[in-house]
């Protein structure tokens, strides 16, 4: 019991310390960072935040870009993945087994290898510098894992439940809407968060597809911030950007906390 507690505290410190350090850095003046032990009146500052919010374009613009891309990619992925996984969960022929194999293969494929050819695609079809267009590779790359996760969730629903609703007269669409989707809500929530996180964090594709500064997504914008000067690294501004960038994620996790946890433990206990 005692050991458990120390372990949990250790793990918490281990994973939260970097975040705490960023928070600390974001409110510190450059002098305070180089000399951690000075106690001067200009030890704490909002300067870092003001700096990145007053830049051109302001930092919240990148946040908005990322949010648009993230939400849209998630929506596209789910709209395609839900019906696909429903039909995969229903069929058990050779074709569906083969599809599952391919899906598992592409889910594990390191996507970074693809980014050069994706760049070619963007050039050919004129998809560069377009926030809506970048959602296409994002949702395509998240699709295999999303389909596999949702297929497993659909398979976990007892067959009787759907058959009872068939006998009650529900059409396929009504069954999905009123019975099946509500039952796999936790899996949908955790899948959506995975997809959203992927597009929120994605760097190589965003770097190569988007060059206009007002269209940049968060990771690329942060990288530019870090490399904006050859002579100094703007630690404070960078930390402030990190803090702002993680606020939406924190909010999502707080809102969907229950669903995520039940999604993670789903299938662990029968019944």
């Amino acid at each position: 019991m005692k050991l458990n507690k120390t372990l949990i505290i250790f793990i918490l410190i281990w994973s939260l310390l970097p975040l705490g350090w960023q928070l600390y850095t974001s409110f510190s003046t450059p002098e305070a960072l180089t000399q951690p032990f000075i106690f001067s009146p200009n030890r704490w500052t909002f300067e870092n935040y003001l700096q990145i919010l007053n830049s051109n374009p302001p930092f919240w613009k990148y946040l908005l870009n990322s949010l648009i891309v993230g939400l849209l990619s998630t929506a596209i992925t789910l709209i395609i993945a839900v019906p696909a996984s429903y039909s995969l969960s229903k069929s058990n022929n050779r074709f569906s087994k083969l599809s599952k194999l391919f899906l598992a293969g592409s889910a594990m494929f390191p996507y970074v290898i693809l980014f050069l050819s994706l760049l070619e695609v963007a050039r050919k079809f004129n998809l560069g510098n377009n926030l809506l267009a970048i959602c296409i590779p994002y949702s395509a790359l998240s699709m295999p894992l999303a389909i596999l996760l949702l297929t497993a969730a659909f398979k976990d629903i007892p067959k009787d439940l759907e058959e009872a609703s068939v006998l009650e007269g529900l059409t396929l669409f009504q069954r999905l809407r009123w019975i099946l989707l509500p039952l796999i809500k936790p899996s949908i929530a955790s899948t959506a968060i995975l997809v959203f996180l992927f597009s929120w964090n994605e760097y190589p594709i965003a770097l190569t597809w988007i060059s206009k500064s007002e269209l940049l997504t968060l990771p690329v914008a942060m990288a530019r911030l870090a490399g904006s000067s050859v002579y100094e690294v703007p630690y404070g501004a960078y930390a402030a950007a990190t803090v702002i960038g993680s606020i939406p994620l924190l909010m999502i996790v707080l809102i969907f906390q229950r669903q995520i946890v039940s999604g993670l433990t789903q299938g662990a206990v029968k019944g």
Partner: protein
Amino acid sequence: MTLTLENLGLCVQRNWIIRNINIEVQPGECLALLGPSGCGKSTTLRLIAGLDKPSEGSISLFNKDLKGISPVNRKIGMVFQSYALFPHLTVVENLALGLKVRGYSIAEQKRRISYVLELLQIATLRNRKPQEISGGQRQRIALARALLRDPLIYLLDEPMSNLDAQLREDLRPELRKLIISGDKPVIYVTHDQQEAMAISNRIAVLNNGNLEQIGTPQELYLKPQSIFVANFIGRPQINMFEPLDSIRIAVRPEDIYLDPDGIQCKLIYKEWLGQNQLLFFDTPKGTIRMIGDTALDIPSEPRITWKKQKEHHFSTKSGKRIS
């Protein structure tokens, strides 16, 4: 004829799960489908409900072939073995869902639901979720859903199997009142032969996907058509003697009695059943079970016998009844 199953069979991956099922259900009749676990009872119901397609044979309801008719349009009130209540909906929502999609007005939905909830005495559970109510209450909700379906025929798949013995007996009269003695035919699946005998007009015994015998409880008990039925129907179990000249003789325990001219045997042990006792005798023909009066005094060297006309004869080769 209300429901006719003709030569019905289902084959999954070259295995026949059920085959050659011929059953006719009369109007207003309750037919029990009886058999051990895995014999194909649920499969038969699923075929009738249209949830699976038969590999051979046909099903007709009121002289209309059901082939190609969707499960909804077959108008079947089914109670699933697992009850299949929707876990994310409250009791009322569970019941309203079907009415809603079948186009009843809100007022009509309310009226009908209140009516069945009153009928089954579960009105207090309206706003509970299925996992918040007991097994017996869940069974009532499942029955309520079947009643609201206003079906042509009821299919009940082991509706009591999840309940304890006491509750089962308590619910039996209620079930009889609500569904079984109505004018709609009922197919009642069970693996409990006592329940089948208590509740149904006729019993169809299934074994390994084959129909062993179909008849009234009396017919099945007094004239079992195969060794399987003889063993399966009647508790304590029938005495099945070792085969002799390709004939197997069987005698029910209550047809055995003490007789000074009978065969010599030894009492091994006895079970007290309340109104009588079950005696186990070691005899040259093997162990014999006998039901006797509790007042019966067993001598140290008892002799037992039975009347010739109480014997059941079966062919060892086919397992079927002879004579």
